[in-house]
């Protein structure tokens, strides 16, 4: 089902070993390879501990692979220095974390603009960009509310708005529905559809069956004990 043209994300023979050479050595990923085309939706599935989160953090260049390489938009992000990795995340990646990871003492607006703060933007530009995503995800009315006072659904929408505020081409989501009830999980699904329509490349790591065999999904990759199933 892979589209023609540019591969957005390429994972090439990636292995990740923690505590290499020590008694507690642990292989999180072993020789994983796949490619995700631009605008595709890919579901990474597998039980917890199968290496999904590690794979996401490698794609986000939060960690470096022990072997292999991650290439995003033709750039070897796994070889980037810390600074360039950060820059790459800021410009290319929107992150939706498990449990949302909002900063509780900051307001909705302040949470949403955090990815933009290191950029040289004036207050007007910040407001304009935040307003756009807040309206898209119907959270603008709570702009000045501290995140700790939000309901689950509001937290979810704030987290998604924050992931999209820098208009990244790639969205990574880590167990996005793990703490949500059925209604909110379905709501998230509809947001994913929205993102795909906008041409974003979306990779979701989940073990929630809700995401299995969806019509909009381009591909499912199953991980078990750090290896790709069927590989």
């Amino acid at each position, binding site marked *: 089902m892979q589209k023609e043209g540019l591969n957005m994300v390429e994972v090439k023979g990636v292995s990740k070993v923690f505590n*290499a050479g020590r008694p507690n050595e642990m292989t999180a990923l072993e020789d994983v390879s796949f490619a995700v085309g631009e605008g595709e939706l890919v579901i990474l599935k597998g039980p917890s501990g199968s290496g999904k989160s590690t794979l996401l953090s490698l794609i986000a260049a939060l960690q*470096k692979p*022990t072997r292999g390489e991650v290439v995003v938009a033709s*750039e070897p992000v796994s*070889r980037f*220095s*810390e*600074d*360039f990795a950060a820059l790459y995340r800021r410009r290319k990646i929107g992150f939706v974390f498990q449990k949302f990871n909002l900063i509780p003492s900051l307001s909705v607006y302040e949470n949403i603009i955090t990815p933009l703060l290191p950029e040289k933007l004036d207050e007007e530009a910040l407001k304009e960009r935040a307003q756009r995503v807040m309206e898209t995800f119907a959270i603008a009315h709570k702009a000045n509310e501290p995140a700790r006072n939000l309901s689950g659904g509001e937290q979810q929408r704030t987290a998604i708005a924050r992931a999209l505020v820098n208009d990244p081409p790639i969205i990574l989501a880590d167990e996005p529905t793990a703490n949500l009830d059925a209604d909110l999980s379905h709501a998230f699904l509809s947001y994913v559809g929205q993102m795909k329509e906008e041409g974003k490349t979306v990779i979701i790591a989940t073990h929630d069956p809700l995401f299995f065999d969806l019509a909009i999904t381009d591909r499912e990759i199953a991980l078990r004990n750090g290896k790709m199933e069927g590989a």
Partner: protein
Amino acid sequence: MTLLSPEVIAVLMLDGILFFFASLAFLLSLRIVLRWDERATTPLQYTLQKQAYLVATVIAFIFYLKLPLFLFFIYTLDLLSNILPGAMCAAGVTTATVYGMPLFGLKIANLYLFGLWLAAHRIDMGYPTMPYTRVKFLAYLLIFPLFVVEEALELLHFFGINPHVIVSCCGTLFSAAKSSAVSAFVSLPLPVTLGTFYGLFGLAVWAWRKQRPLLSALANLLFVPVAILSLIAFFSTYVYEMPHHHCPFCLLQADYRFVGYLMYAFLFFGTFFGMAAWLAKRMGYEGWRKWLLFSVIGDFLYVALVSYYPIAFYLKNGVWL
């Protein structure tokens, strides 16, 4: 210790802090130089990458503290001139021990070196893989001993000052009659002095027009001592409006509205970027053209400021000193 002035204690304490950080940076740099492997994904490499940030931060801290501290150091010497018999300004205190003059030279050189290191670091951080990491930290390993020597000279100087020995004042130190390198320059014919001074400035401007950073670096490197010596030999006398008062320190006193601080700031700014532009070009950084421009601006401001005094004097009085 005979000179227990609060200013001296403050300078020594800050030196202690700087020394602690510089040594920390040295040890970490040593490890980075020996063990750095940008391809490796070992925990050691991660640790080294993180420590590289610490080293850079520490060096930035040292540089940005050294800049104002240098001015405070001169101010302290100026204060000490009140208790040293014979001294009228920092010049006398500097020559109170044999370490004073080398200390001064080394302090200035180290400011340039730390500054250039930071410039190189900034450029290196602009590349995804930081290709100059090893070279950079190797360079720091070479700068560190100079820093240690500076600190040692400073201790020797402060503890070596004997308040009962009469020192010279700037009037005799920089007079043509004395036989030192400085005096030799002071006694050079004026056309030679000024020719070298304005000639080097012209060369720096030409290097900018032709976009030749190596030439600019060389011109600016020479411009530092020539500018200071010609300031002593010629320009300072017009600031003081006294033909025999040659001194690079009295300029910093309130009597002359602290104009010296402005002069030295311009000179440092201009010559620093003149050298940094060459380094930037060598490291493939596009910003070097901008830095070259900064250099010419700084040099020009310096030349304009020091030239103002004799010209204004001539226009007012119709004669030269």
